[in-house]
């Protein structure tokens, strides 16, 4: 079923929209939530919460890319849940691993001046993503935004896990070089 059909069902307040959305995106939603939370029960709850949010938001919202809209809702729900339980759950899920990978090319700001760079860094990252091929960009966003692991990305991209890892490795190197070129050197960041 296409996104626009699912959106139309939500617009029409057709409860079958929920099951259609789950059929189309349920597995991916659950994976993303699980990778953020590291707990299946919490992940399932987050997906349900996200579906409820989406149900409440549409209408009036009219998302053109329903999948991304739903995944964003799932991600936000999972991150909210993660913040609530961070003390007990520190280290769970894919976020620590993803953060660890990126830390090599995006070191941490640790003073006020550098915090001001955060916005510039975000803009620079967006510009950098524009330079990537669609495949490389999809893999990068899947890993660091959706928090999917290499195997999960590989399965959905119909790639091998090694190819995903290699793509991520190359992209991180490019990002590091790009940030350096843009003035985000280790000394600055």
């Amino acid at each position: 079923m296409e996104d626009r059909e699912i959106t139309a069902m939500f617009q029409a307040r057709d409860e079958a929209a929920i099951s259609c959305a789950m059929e189309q995106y349920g597995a991916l939603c659950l994976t993303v939530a699980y990778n953020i939370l590291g707990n299946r029960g919490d992940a399932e709850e987050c997906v349900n919460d996200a579906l409820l949010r989406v149900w409440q938001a549409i209408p009036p919202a009219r998302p053109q890319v329903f999948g991304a809209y739903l995944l964003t809702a799932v991600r936000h729900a999972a991150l909210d849940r993660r913040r609530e339980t961070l003390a007990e759950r520190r280290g769970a899920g894919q976020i620590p691993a993803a953060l660890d990978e990126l830390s090599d090319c995006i070191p941490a700001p640790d003073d006020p001046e550098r915090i001001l760079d955060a916005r510039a860094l975000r803009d620079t990252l967006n510009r950098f993503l524009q330079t990537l091929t669609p495949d490389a960009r999809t893999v990068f966003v899947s890993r660091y935004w959706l928090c999917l692991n290499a195997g999960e990305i590989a399965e959905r991209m119909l790639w091998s896990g090694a190819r995903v890892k290699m793509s991520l490795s190359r992209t991180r190197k490019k990002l590091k070089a790009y940030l350096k070129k843009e003035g985000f050197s280790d000394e600055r960041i």
Partner: protein
Amino acid sequence: MKESEYLDLMNGLDARYPEEAVSRLSGNAIPDSETAFTAVPVTRTPRRIFAGVMTAFAAAACVFAVTVLLPKLGRGPESVNPASSQPGTDFERETAVTDSTEENPVSWAHTMPGETEVGCTDTAPGDAVATTLKTHNNTMPNTGEGAVEYTTSGAVSAGATVTGVTSNLYTTTVIETPQVKLVQNKLGYYVLEVQAGYHASVRIKAEDQPAFTLNASQSAHIVKLMADEKLEPCGDKIMPSGASPDKYLDERLTVELIGTDICWELSRFKVADLNLIQVDGVYYQGKTADAAKQIRQYAQYCMDGEEFVIHLPADYSGYAVIFTIACTQNPVILSQEDTGYILKQMTEAKLTEIPTPELPCGGPISVNLGFTQWDIYTEDIVSIDNKFYRDSTGALAELERYALGFLGGERPE
């Protein structure tokens, strides 16, 4: 970087990137619309560009680019860009296939991720051809009389992979056909771009030997050599006393590109070291650095099973990128098979250190395997780590010829 900073950074991604990623992962097209993805502010103009690109993918659902020569990615030449298979998108193709026989079956299959492969195989003319798709039932008529012609249309599920239709029809001498093109991808690999419905790999056959189908890497290498060859008909002018070449024929090797109309015969003659190519009964001789000989050599290596293949640990597979051949610019990245062959030649070369010799103009051809780089200056002189060596075994000459094959057959000026 703290976790909160990381999350803030990722939360600040332009919405079109998550949209693109989710759409590609789920097999959905990004609609071409200005309507906002409402959760995050969007920069509209670039988003439209992406939307246009993705829509173009959907519109071109019947023409898939099939990438070859990346065997370790675990995808054969029949793999299809999943972004091209959209759920609910009408999937149409028309493929005329001839010569469906017991020996050359026609196959047609759709593989749904996580599901049992469904499809059909036609093993002989006149057999019924039927396929069952997840969302579409279809029967393809078989016209019989040695030919299968069908048109099918239907909806293909997200991520569907479409595999193979083979045909055998040898009539022309053109390397690049509408169905198969040899291109160099961004990584430097030579790949065969194959139109959906066609399967491209090279099959070689020597007289009195069984046919041997090459893998994707080998196939692309052969096709590259074929493409490098500049042909001009020579007929029997080069033969003694105007005699027919067939009279002196010593050995004949057939190289065909399955799924296309390309079939070359590489003929070797007793009277001289003549490496001729026969296409449709017309003899040609290569103008460039004996590509025909290289094709023959390479094919023979493959047939004899002499190819030296290195096996890398799974986690190391991505590092094939470090295996390159270069003449100062434009490095050619090698497959594992080709790397293995070069490694074999390196191993076989027995080197003797010599003082710095007088070096020829044009610079060396570099063979870089990551852990070692050989700069080949002549057929028997190589430099490794700033020391010069001479080889008297002929392995270096073979290595140079092999490397030249990747670089167009000629030394840099």
